């Protein structure tokens, strides 16, 4: 004869679980990003063109758009010809293509450059070469990174949204101009 046991209702003790959960909340909040981070893909700095690249250049003539950031403005050139250079010269060493928006301001004033004019210049080239997406950006040694990033933004187009193209495989929107940046050392 077996004994009859009465079924007892046991209530789960939730307090230890609650304690862990309450500790997890501040830990996760601390680990969370407060600012939303993004990334700009860049191609590595080129120190010299390789033999293969030289061969490609012979086969087809690309726009070869270059932006050189100087302390006194931007020098913009395409296919080896600087925009706004004196007649008969490929580059004008005295004056930049786009002068500073705020001349006389220190280098750490990131708004000293005329990003709007650079964007307009990029739009002109994009209209002439709609399939071109590459720009080579170089700068003088003292130029701050924020200016380089702002320059990339201006060349890409301020209304350019690449999220869809990068994550969902959509086509790059037409607002995006030169979104593939190559960072080149000491060119110009």
């Amino acid at each position, binding site marked *: 004869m077996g004994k009859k046991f009465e079924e007892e209702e046991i209530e789960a003790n*939730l*307090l230890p*679980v*609650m304690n862990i*959960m*309450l500790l*997890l*909340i501040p830990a*996760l*909040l601390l*680990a*969370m*990003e407060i*600012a*939303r*981070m*993004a*990334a*700009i*893909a*860049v*191609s*590595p*700095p080129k*120190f010299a063109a390789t033999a293969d690249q030289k061969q490609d250049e012979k086969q087809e003539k690309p726009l070869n758009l270059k932006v050189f*950031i100087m302390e006194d403005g931007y020098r913009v050139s395409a296919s080896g010809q600087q925009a706004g250079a004196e007649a008969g010269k490929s580059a004008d060493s005295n004056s930049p293509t786009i002068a500073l928006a705020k001349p006389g301001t220190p280098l*750490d004033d*990131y708004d000293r450059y005329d990003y709007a004019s650079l964007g307009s210049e990029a739009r002109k080239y994009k209209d002439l070469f709609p399939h071109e997406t590459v720009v080579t950006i170089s*700068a*003088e*040694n*003292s*130029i*701050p*990174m*924020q200016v*380089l*990033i*702002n320059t*990339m*933004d201006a060349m*890409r187009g*301020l209304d*350019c*949204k*690449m*999220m869809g193209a*990068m*994550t969902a495989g959509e086509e790059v929107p037409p607002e995006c101009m030169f979104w593939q940046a190559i*960072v080149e*050392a*000491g060119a110009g």
Partner: protein
Amino acid sequence: MTTEAEQAFIARKAAKREGRRGMQEEKAILGMTSLMDAITIIVTYLLKNYGSDPVVIAPTQGQKVPLSKADTPIQDGVPIYVSERAITFAEKRVVQMDETGQIDPAALQGHLIGPLYDLLAEEADKAKQMSEGKGEEWEGRIILVGDQNLKFSVLVDVMYTAGRAEFREYAFCVVQQNG
């Protein structure tokens, strides 16, 4: 002088008091289920947010990450923190900067930053072995977490060094600007 209504009210109160005297005090039980539900939802939301980023970027003290209109999400890669004070990799201060924000000349051989190269090459070897083990192709992506005021020459040196350590893809980490 009390009215009839007041007398009736006092009588009712007295009757209630009498009735309560014989009753046992009730034990209040804290309802945990609803609180548990709320906390579970918060923890799940936070865990999801934490797990959706492939890399956790934690800038070093005093580092001001550049602002940009770019909206491309950060892909998996190896972060290098370059501030005006030092280059930090894998939570180690690899190279100190001088007062002008330039790399210590003792650590520099041309464009190559020696101590950073050693660590990056080691990291690249490890990552390659891991990728081979998984049967995947190694992407070799560097995430450069710079500073707004970082000089272009330093940036180029870091990129050159990463290139020498066989990293092929580069991304600048930026703080997304609204609008």
